[in-house]
């Protein structure tokens, strides 16, 4: 059985193996072992309610094959984007340069450095074994987060964002970076990206230009890359759009990648989610559903076939209930695939 649950320290080798298959990485997750360890540790403390991380919890889930113990994927979210520090984005805006006297009217795109997404809930750390990418388990891995957030909504704000990796050319260069950040950081995109993943974000504040940037002054390639997802992120983008995310006006300050935004209660998973009491049953047929328990630090989610009937009781196969650690009469939450 394949389940999603909070990550533990023992998962480290499995996570490391997964993220080092580069094809599995869909968003920023460090491949450095120490950094991964810190990330798991931070998540464990967030689930445990450690005071030190209060208000800036960062949750990391793993998807595990309970039989082979193999880690098949990771997903996560930061309860408060920026994690206590400013969270940087460019907001794409428009200025009108016009003069009635001269009969001139021009729309000029401009990028404003902003921190306004600081404190939103930010999806992150998505990676999945390529074997599972185009299966319902991708839904399990990603959407179980939305169920978790809804079940524990007092711990999250309504506004959810997902930063999507921006466009790169065939050689791995980011045209947006080459035309903008490069002038100020004096380093290539990979290095800057690496620093932003592992160093404090202060260096961004120190190095990025503080004044707005006029889009027409960027190279044609950079202009074209604004809010364009990396080819490998296109599927994830489509997935998020289907879930109810929309393209906002914010882009990544490094690669110009889009930031998708949604209000939690508008998400399809959240809108279609139900909560019932479990009645154990030996056989259960029907459609496949996302299912999870309603606990916080013992959160479990999986996929299971069942039939959703009338009433407050849901018949669930014993094995499914066991994998979700739900006993007879316990609460279960579910949403259609």
């Amino acid at each position: 059985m394949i389940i999603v649950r909070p990550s533990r320290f023992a998962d480290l080798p499995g996570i490391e193996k997964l993220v080092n298959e580069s094809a599995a990485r869909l968003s920023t997750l460090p491949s450095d072992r120490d950094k991964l360890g810190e990330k798991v540790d931070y998540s464990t403390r967030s689930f445990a309610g450690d005071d030190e991380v209060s208000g800036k919890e960062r949750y990391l889930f793993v998807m595990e094959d309970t039989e082979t113990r193999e880690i098949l994927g990771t997903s996560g979210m930061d309860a408060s984007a920026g994690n206590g520090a400013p969270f940087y984005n460019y907001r794409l805006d428009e200025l009108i340069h016009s003069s009635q006297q001269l009969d001139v009217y021009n729309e000029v795109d401009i990028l404003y450095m902003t921190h306004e997404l600081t404190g939103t809930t930010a999806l992150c750390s998505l990676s999945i074994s390529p074997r599972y990418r185009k299966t319902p388990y991708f839904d399990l891995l990603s959407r179980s987060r939305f169920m978790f957030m809804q079940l524990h909504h007092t711990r999250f704000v309504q506004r959810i964002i997902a930063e999507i990796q921006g466009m790169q050319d065939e050689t791995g260069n980011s045209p947006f970076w080459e035309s903008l950040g490069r002038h100020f950081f004096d380093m290539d995109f990979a290095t800057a990206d690496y620093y932003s993943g592992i160093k404090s974000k202060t260096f961004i504040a120190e190095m990025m230009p503080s004044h707005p940037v006029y889009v027409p002054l960027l190279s044609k390639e950079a202009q074209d890359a604004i809010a364009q997802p990396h080819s490998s992120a296109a599927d994830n983008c489509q997935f998020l759009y289907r879930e109810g995310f929309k393209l906002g006006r914010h882009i990544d300050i490094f690669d110009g990648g889009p930031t998708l935004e949604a209000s939690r209660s508008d998400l399809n998973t959240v809108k279609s989610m139900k909560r019932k009491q479990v009645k154990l049953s030996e056989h259960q047929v029907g459609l496949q559903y996302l299912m999870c328990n309603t606990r916080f630090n013992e959160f479990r989610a999986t996929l299971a076939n069942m039939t959703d009937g009338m009433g407050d009781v849901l018949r669930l196969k014993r094995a499914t209930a066991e994998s979700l650690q739900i006993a007879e009469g316990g609460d279960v939450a579910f949403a259609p695939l």
Partner: protein
Amino acid sequence: MMLIRPIVADDLEALYCMAQSAGVGVTTLPANEELLASRIEHSERSFSRSVDPQDAYYLFALEDTELKRVVGVSGIMARVGLDEVWYNYRVSTTVNASKELGIHKQTPTLYLTNDMTDCTEICTLFLHADYRNGHNGQLLSKCRFLYLADFAEYFSSKIFAEMRGYADEDGNSPFWECLGRKFFTMEFSKADYLTGLGNKAFIAELMPKYPIYLPFLTEEAREVIGQVHPHTRPALAMLESEGFNFNGLVDIFDAGPLVEVFVRNIRSVRDSIKRHVMPSQQTVSDIETPIMVSNRSFENFRVALIDQSQIKQDVVSLSHELQENLQLESGDMVRTVPLRAKRAE
């Protein structure tokens, strides 16, 4: 004889002909008869003190007295930026540094400023092609400093000049192509013409207001920032010899430099000496070491060149013709200064 005097209404035709031959780049002398007429009128009212000193605009005409024809003009704008907004870019530096990463990065940056507001500008210098020889250019430009010397209270203590920026042979400005052009679709020549018509503030309002980081501009555009047009180099050298210096500001359209100086530091002001007029029967036709002599009249300002030999201590010997042209009588006080700075020995 070449004589400097205030421009008058009758000079309109000659001025219009000159403007037509001026071409792109002399933004203060557009070939527009109506506009030129109003400039002349403005100047006449300024010399007659009919306008507020801060609204004054003085146009000095260079007349070939034999032909009775105006062959050049130069101007002083008493104050800029008071009834419309005066814009320049300041060439500045932004430093981004990170101790954590050991990076210290300097980025040249253009800031839009109104720094020259309320300053006096020397402007509108134009000399007919046939007269671009001898001392004419120097006289036409520097006569203004003698005016400033005697009537400093009418002007700001700081004087500046905008120098025409670099343009290629077709009149295109690389700076404009890279920056201004992107903010409104207009040829440089058109923008330049509109500027001359007094629309500079309108155009400026279309320009980007936020600072411009120079790495965003093309190399061609960056290279011409603070560079003058090749034809303007002699004018720049002349102003520099008078004490003007680049002040870090450039034109927002073509990035030509602004040079400035305090009135008291202008060589022609500092080195000028007041002397008395002594009538002379002799006419000196050969000017070996030219000396500017002004009649120190606000309304009927006149300047001509005499030779060093006509000066004896505190008196200046002037022929009848010179006295007439300069509207001077025996015993009147004039202001004199060598036309050119003494070469360093």
